[in-house]
């Protein structure tokens, strides 16, 4: 019995070590690739600092100060060394440590992406199930139109139209930004998530303002997730609904609802976890267009501005965070697999 436990523990430790090393190698590869791309990109971070009309002596001075005169692998080594000491460097754009910047902009994106994915799941899942259980009938066609709309309509255009109709014409939604300017800086920052911080402060006017501002961009951002999640759900469900155990269940006299939700849907939960996790990850790193239209000071805008400047410290920091997000989401979905699928325990 003792030997068995030790062996199991050893296997678990080795599994964890293998997984940790895979994560480390992935992140290192990601950083090396980004670093090289950053250096071969025809962007000149020195010009961003000195301006296009600076003379050569100024340019050379800043070039050296930024360490660009060193060989690329030396630069990468120095960067990694700083990283190991918890120093991500300073961002050109803000002059602040990159980590502070990411800490500042990330909550805005988390708040937006979380609401968007909630919308995606709450609408997308039932829509997909409805489409599959009504294959070829009206429900399926309606779902197809909705998903086609979600997939094919440019999010940028939807954002502008949403602002025009719900903000400018109807006045239902807030305009650009996370909150009305009157409340800007008035909510004590605890989590950086304005809806939560304003609730904690009991400032319900600020909460309402933040809610008015976030609902529209979150719905539009979530529309693409609705399309993706519903199509995947439909596909998984169709596969399950054609299985023999479903026919058996029907023959046994179970209702259609019990068969669809109690049997088929339960069996696709595990696959759906991966789909939702990946969709959430994409929302966290890819909300840049909607952030631009709604002047949302989030992660996507920060990354794009840094890229345009050739600000490699900021870009590398962001890439590392994106890598970590996907690693974390994968780990979480793996852990949840074990909860929902006994065979993986």
């Amino acid at each position, binding site marked *: 019995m003792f030997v068995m436990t030790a062996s199991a523990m050893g296997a678990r430790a080795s599994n964890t070590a293998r997984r940790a090393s895979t994560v480390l190698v992935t992140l290192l590869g990601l950083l090396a690739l980004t670093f090289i791309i950053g250096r071969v990109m025809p962007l000149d971070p020195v010009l961003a600092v000195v301006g296009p009309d*600076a003379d050569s002596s*100024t340019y050379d001075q800043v070039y050296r100060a930024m360490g660009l005169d060193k060989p690329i692998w030396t630069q990468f080594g120095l960067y990694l060394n700083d990283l190991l000491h918890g120093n991500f460097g300073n961002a050109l754009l*803000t002059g*602040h440590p990159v980590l502070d910047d990411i800490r500042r902009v990330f909550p805005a994106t988390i708040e937006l992406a979380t609401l968007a994915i909630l919308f995606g799941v709450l609408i997308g899942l039932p829509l997909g199930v409805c489409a599959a259980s009504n294959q070829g009938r009206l429900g399926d066609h309606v779902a197809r139109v909705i998903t086609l709309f979600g997939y094919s309509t440019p999010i940028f255009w939807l954002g*502008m139209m949403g602002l025009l109709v719900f903000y400018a014409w109807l006045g239902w939604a807030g305009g650009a930004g996370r909150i009305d*300017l009157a409340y800007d800086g008035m909510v004590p920052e605890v989590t950086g998530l304005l809806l939560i911080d304003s609730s904690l402060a009991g400032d319900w*006017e600020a*909460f309402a303002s933040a809610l008015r501002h976030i609902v529209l961009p979150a719905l539009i951002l979530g529309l693409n997730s609705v399309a993706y999640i519903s199509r995947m759900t439909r596909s998984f469900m169709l596969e399950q609904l054609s299985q023999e155990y479903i026919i058996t269940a029907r023959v046994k006299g179970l209702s259609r609802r019990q068969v669809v939700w109690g049997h088929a849907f339960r069996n696709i939960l595990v696959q759906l976890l991966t789909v939702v996790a990946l969709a959430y990850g994409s929302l966290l790193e890819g909300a840049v267009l909607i952030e631009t239209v709604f*002047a949302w000071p989030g992660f996507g805008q920060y990354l794009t501005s840094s890229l345009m400047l050739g600000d490699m410290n900021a870009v590398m920091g962001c890439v590392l965070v994106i890598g970590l997000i996907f690693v974390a989401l994968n780990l979480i979905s793996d852990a949840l697999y074990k909860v929902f699928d006994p065979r993986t325990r």
Partner: protein
Amino acid sequence: MTTAFTKLHAGLLAAILALVPMTQASAKTPADQLIVGMSMVNLFSIDPANAPGLDASGVNANLYDTLVKRDQGNPEQHLPQLAERWTISDDGKQITFHLRQDVKFHSGNPLTAEDVAWSLYRVMKLNFGLATTWKAYGYNVDNIQSLIRASDAHTLVIDLPQTMDPLLLIDSLAISPSAVVIDRKTALAHEKNNDLGANWLVTNEAGSGPFVLSKWTANDSLLLTRFDGYWGGAAKLKRVVVRHMTESQSLRLMLERGDLDLAYGMAAPDIRAIDGSEKIHVQSLPRGTMYYVALSMKQPEFANPKVREAVRNLIDYKGLDEQVMPYYGQLNQQPMQLSLAARLPDPGYRMDVAKAKKLLAEAGYPDGFSTTIRTLSEPPFIDIAARLQATLAEGGIKASIVNGTGNQVYGAMRARNFDIIVARGAERYPHPYFSLRTFAYNPNNSDDAGLPNFQGWRASFFSPQLNSLIDQAGVERDAGQRLNLYHQAQNIYDEQVGPIMMISQMTDTVVSAADVKGFAGDDAEATRYLGVYKQR
């Protein structure tokens, strides 16, 4: 517990009720605050020694003061600011400024001549792009402390290191973004590794201007609060709030809804759509920067003056001005800004395909040739380039467009690695001497000279005759003779077919709510909010 739940319930209810439609579009911004929407992408340093961008100049104009300012845009007439009066020695080699004695920085420290001298020394010591202005006068980090010095707490003495018209230096003190005065004690209190406070001043200020920087979050928002102790009288507005907005249509919608008072950087179609509305005021602020088509004379085709003249005849000046440039710029064909007395009238260049073909044939290119046009991938640059591509094709020149970011385009130009570039730039401050120096001056045409601060060098344009005339104008103290030299230089640039062909002078279109009053541009491209107010 029950009470907490009741409160939560009531709060949520109130929040939901607040979501009920509000459809009125009347002005909602507070009467004593100005809410501004603009892109802050290029605002990443407000350190006066290293803030070359227009946006940073706009912010710093409200945080800092200069010694003098231009009078009605005239680069040869100046008005007192921090300096109450000044005298120029008879030989023109020394200027003495007498400073106001009632000026305090935001910190409460009194502003002294030592602060002024130290601020200029700091620019040279840090040696960022803006130091170029002072290097042109012969200052360097070794001589500036002895040449610009405080003779007492409120007297500043400036010696010119080389023979120059002292009015040029006074004008630079009025308009250069690096000429503002920093609170030395405050900056040095934040010094790290002998950086003269550079790291701190990137995101903080130590000025004496009419507003204090209360908050700045990059690419999010910026908050300026009125400085009640301002020597020139407190501003009318209590706060100026700037929100980072890059999308022109969002700016337009927010202006129309009354959630914004003022917007910078809107796209021409959006401005056109609301221009004429009673609720909106559209204002064009002339800027010194020029839109141009530059040819590299390193390319054998463009080294030939006949080919350059052919290209000049293939630019559709009129079409560009009427169809592409509204809200972006105003027709200008001279290498000198429209407002200047020294500027000659436009030479009247116009598109003439037959003449261009004849010139190309004479130059040995009867069938034209292939080339590339580099430009920025945004309006109006890309539109100018597309039109130029079409009109060049009419003359037989096949041009492909390579577009990119400003960094990529100007980087290629600085490296003298281009054929044709459609860009904007050079001297921001209208001044005949600096305009000519920027576009037509090139003291050394070798690649090794590394003079990218001269656009003439970038385009490999080398004219000893023009160099000499511009040098003479820089030292000439007789106004009539100086004017004559400027006229001669423009005529020669025309005759020699200068490779940097001006097409338009930039205008910045600012759109504001109709109740915003007192907003006006100035020569330093830096509008102060000091006199702005709302008429409600």
